[in-house]
């Protein structure tokens, strides 16, 4: 009888332990990696999730959880082609992908040094594209999906405000060239097919200069 109890107890401990091991911690993965191949996210995305502007590594802090989760899946399946992110994501389990997406979505948006707003013709082009679009070419305004001041809308339209010039520019080029084709309804592929190099430079600089924290709203 006693030995049976001992066996049961041992089983319970083992089950509890494996259950705990099966619930990865997003913060740990972000700060230390997952111990089996995935580098710590913060090595590139910064200790506060603010990204690294100069290298074009995006801010993850405060982005919508569903959006982050989908991007991880899309790096893995190649619909968002990225040589750095693909091996990282491939070594994360589904549960680990869930955990880091949740972790970063809940991080507060860190304050960033102000970025200079473009001026002259670039400012005019950017402001027009951001707020009005170019409808004779069938091009809607960025705000019509990404929200006022590019603050993001819901689960599918991430904030643009305060991402770095290089990140936004790289993303727009990736859409345009097809390296990234994970957009719902092919919205970004369609839009970027109508943007010139000058448009991309102007709009990237524009949104990089918009403050991220003031437009970030709590997700419902």
């Amino acid at each position, binding site marked *: 009888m006693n030995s049976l109890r001992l066996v049961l107890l041992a089983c319970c401990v083992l089950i509890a332990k494996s259950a705990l091991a099966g619930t990865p911690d997003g913060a740990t993965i972000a700060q230390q990696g997952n111990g089996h191949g995935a580098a710590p996210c913060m090595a590139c995305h910064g200790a506060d999730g603010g990204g690294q502007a100069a290298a074009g590594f995006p801010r993850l802090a405060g982005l919508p959880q569903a959006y982050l989760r989908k991007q991880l899946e899309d790096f893995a399946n190649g619909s968002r082609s990225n040589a750095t992110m693909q091996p990282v994501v491939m070594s994360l389990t589904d549960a680990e992908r869930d955990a880091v997406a949740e972790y970063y979505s809940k991080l507060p948006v860190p304050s960033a040094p102000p970025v200079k707003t473009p001026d002259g013709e670039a400012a005019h082009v950017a402001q027009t594209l951001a707020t009005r679009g170019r409808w004779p070419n069938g091009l*809607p305004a960025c705000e019509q*999906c990404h929200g006022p*001041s590019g603050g993001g809308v819901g689960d599918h339209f991430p904030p643009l405000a305060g991402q770095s010039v290089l990140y936004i520019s790289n993303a727009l080029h990736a859409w345009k060239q*097809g390296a990234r*084709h994970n957009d719902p309804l*092919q*919205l970004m*592929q*369609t839009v970027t*097919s109508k943007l010139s190099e000058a448009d991309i430079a102007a709009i990237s600089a524009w949104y990089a200069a918009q403050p991220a924290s003031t437009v970030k709203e709590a997700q419902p």
Partner: protein
Amino acid sequence: MKPSPWMMIGALFLLAACNQKAQQAAPSVANEPAAAATSPKHASGFEPPADSSIPSDDFGKQIALGRQIFIDTGRYAKGYVGNQLSCENCHLDAGRLAQSAPLWGAYPMYPAYRSKNHHVNTFAERLQGCFQYSMNGKAPPLGDDVLVALEAYAYWMSKGESIGVAPLGHGYPKLPKPAQAPDYARGESVFKRDCALCHGDNGQGQQAAGRTVFPPLWGPQSFNWGAGMERLDNAAGFIKANMPLSRGNTLTDQDAWDVAYFMNGHERPQDPRFHGSIEETRKAYHDTPDSLYGATVNGKTLGEGVLK
């Protein structure tokens, strides 16, 4: 060495695991490469003047105010708006876009006799109707700043057009009647596939930073049963030419009719002209196969209205 049963079981597990990984890694159908880029065919018989040509004098101030009202109606015409919509939601590009009922397509056509109310309407009276029905609010009185500003904006935009001649691209395109009668269930599939991303699973739209980004399509915050968009032909034409936003003219005509039926097969605020009963109101104002007011759709008779 012969493989032991345990090794074989282990191998099976591995295979299963690999298979699962492979399934996860395969791109979903939705991620297939883009079809050949399609550009919206917004055939237009008129090019409105650039916004930058709005004069900076006192007349120009009123034109600019009209433009602001058009873009953010709830803010600049507060008190006359009873929902989360703006004029621009159905008249894209601040009322400038062909096949999206542009202002320059309407302005030169007034005054006009309208069967909707059986008398000759001035342009200002036509605008009052927008507030009463599409905005589910109340009509600004004639001479009110809101109407004057909107009329000034429409007048400015129409400079150089012929009076009384409907220019190419006015109104919404008239689609041929669909091969199959519009259908709720087919419309629902189109909605889930192409519309819910922005307009939400329940057509409620999406807001951000206190502004409507994606307009509500039915329910208490949308247009009421008296609005022109309640008509299936109007809705199908608008949707075909303009939806999904930036990807106009990619839906089939059948899809456009079906999803228009689905959208207008939902309840929305009551027609302000309601009198007596749904039946009588239908007979008076909705006596057309293009209106679902009073019809039974998806097991429910429409026209009860919803409270704001």
